[in-house]
């Protein structure tokens, strides 16, 4: 009864192609946006910002990026950390060379630079597939991290090898640097995430998105019906890298403020968790990217609360426990629902359609 579709007629192509064809979805979305834009900024505090909301938004963006490549175009990538590092370091370099440029533009340009790098590292995908490609993308991860770690030009010859963000403002309010208020960083990320996810959603519904999916489902057949593999695969790499680059730029500029490349963009801290997000959320699903990011960001916090505060284990033991539970959860999740949280949601929707009646 809650999710009733009957009675919602579509009388034009426009309404048939709407992003949220169902009234319930539209209401839910508007409510969510209302809460996100008009309520949370007034109640947010530093803990919620730093621990949950901002990382959630940033990782959602990265997950959308990877989902475009892996979920929609079928090219497995393990190089997410490397591409996020490209985004972060281009932001840093642009910031130092153009002190007056608007931060929003800087971040978008960093995304474009990452897209260019993504195209270069996407070239092998034309020749190799599957796990060979996954391992090949690992090469980009190691190479890029090595590059940013070892070539001093990238971190402006600083002694520590760290890069630190300087303060930038939007409409007179600082959004980066230590002085930025919680609501400003949150809103800044939120605006970018909302805009970019709408763009992604529409891209996926466009000709380009359909050709990605054709390549994913069967590349030879796609080629025969006239989908150019070169253009399609490289465009997926470019757009995916753009999203990941923007996420990396935000991760550095807005979230962390100061980073050291080998720690912050390690394969274990970025690449695998993001891959896990899209698998646990659902491959090839926008909603899944968000659900997966939310799950991965909140789970360690919940586990830590449970073990350190409730049971009273020491931090080190709790950390080991966290890794163990983390791994076990991954396995359990893959066994129970390999199609991810998005599938669970669609099952729930199916149930809600009839509820409370059995048929």
């Amino acid at each position, binding site marked *: 009864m809650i999710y009733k579709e009957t009675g919602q007629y579509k009388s034009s192509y426009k309404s048939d192609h709407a992003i949220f064809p169902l009234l319930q979805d539209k209401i839910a979305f508007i409510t969510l946006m209302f809460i996100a834009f008009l309520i949370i900024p007034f109640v947010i505090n530093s803990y919620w910002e730093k621990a949950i909301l901002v990382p959630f938004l940033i990782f959602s963006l990265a997950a959308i990026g990877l989902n475009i490549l892996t979920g929609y175009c079928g090219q497995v990538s393990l190089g997410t950390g490397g591409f996020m590092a490209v985004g972060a370091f281009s932001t840093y370099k642009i910031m130092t060379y153009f002190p007056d440029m608007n931060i929003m533009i800087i971040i978008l340009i960093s995304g474009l630079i990452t897209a260019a790098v993504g195209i270069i590292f996407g070239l092998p995908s034309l020749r190799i597939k599957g*796990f060979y490609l996954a391992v090949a993308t690992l*090469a980009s991860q*190691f190479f890029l991290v*090595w590059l940013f770690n070892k070539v001093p030009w990238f971190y402006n010859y600083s002694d520590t090898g760290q890069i630190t963000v300087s303060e930038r403002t939007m409409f007179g309010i600082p959004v980066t640097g230590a002085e930025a208020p919680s609501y400003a960083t949150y809103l800044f990320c939120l605006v970018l995430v909302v805009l970019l996810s709408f763009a992604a959603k529409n891209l996926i519904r466009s000709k380009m998105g359909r050709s990605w999916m054709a390549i994913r489902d069967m590349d030879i057949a796609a080629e025969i019906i006239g989908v150019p593999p070169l253009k399609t695969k490289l465009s997926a790499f470019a757009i995916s890298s753009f999203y990941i680059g923007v996420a990396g730029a935000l991760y550095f500029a807005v979230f962390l403020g100061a980073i050291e490349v080998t720690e912050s963009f390690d394969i274990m801290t970025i690449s695998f968790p993001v891959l896990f997000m899209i698998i646990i959320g659902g491959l090839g699903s926008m909603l899944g990217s968000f659900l997966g990011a939310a799950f991965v960001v909140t789970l360690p916090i919940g586990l830590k609360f449970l073990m350190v505060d409730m049971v009273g284990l020491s931090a*080190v*033991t709790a950390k080991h426990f966290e890794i163990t*539970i983390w791994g076990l959860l*991954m*396995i359990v999740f*893959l066994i129970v629902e390999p199609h991810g949280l998005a599938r669970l949601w669609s099952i729930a929707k199916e149930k809600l359609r009839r509820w409370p009646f059995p048929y």
Partner: protein
Amino acid sequence: MSVELLNFIETVLNGLMSGVMYSLVALGFVLIFKASGVFNFAQGVFALFAALTLVGYQTGQVPFAHLINELFGTNYHNWYASMPNFLAILLTMVTMIALAWIIERLVLKHLVNQDPIILFMATIGLAFALEGVGDLMWGSDVKVLDVGIPSGGSIWLEEATIGLATEGSDYYGMYVDVLNIWATVIAVILVVSLALFSQYTKTGRALRAVADDHQAALSVGISLRSIWILVWAISGFIAMVAGIMWGTESGVQFSLSLIALKALPVLILGGFTSIPGAIIGGLLIGVGEKLAEIYIGGYFETGALENWFAYVMALVFLLFRPQGLFGDKIIERV
């Protein structure tokens, strides 16, 4: 012989020996991939876990001591002072076999017929879980592993090679770690016995049958599950050997599990499905890395090419042979 030539030979020799170490890890990957189609990312953590367990048995640590002490306020640390190496290795082997059984029972059995990417993610989960369990059981401090394999430079080789240099040159002889020589010998024994096992025993033939075709193997009455347990146990055993070698060289610590990442380029170079490929790929990568470090590394003032050189080498190679050196030819049917 000129000093340059001798240095070159020394580099190649050392490269070959570190390549053997890579091959050892890659071998575990290939075995599992062939038999169950699983790309086992946890292979490196297997090595770590085996090495941790071995040290734990040797020094008689109480498993989960930290956890028990914290929960109940007790103070357990060691059961006994030491255990003979032989017994400890044997017990570790038993543990690895038990681990293989548990993995088959709890993970693989439920994931039959899933996408390869899902299985791959599951092994990443396995890697995390196993690493956590290893740390919980034995503690995360860096441990010294000593099973009686000698290490350090080989004096004999050093003295033997001094004479080879041209008269009057400042040559000190070749430096080759004895540990690496041992590793090479052990790896050769391991590979030969594996080859004999799979060639001449009934179980070995069943193993090859499963690798060729799961369904055909099933239909002639081979138990897929027992073969999988066997294969994972063998990989566990290889991981233990690799863990002992790497652990003796650089201590047993978390970074040991990262050797899996070292083995990946070896795999794509040699092909996922070929045992000779894993060995030759490992040797090529080992030599290539050492040569690059010495002859190209000088041009980058930054050095430390090791992290990615192997990957780029494998990548360039892949552009010409997408299935690796000895991999099965990729045939696509529509």
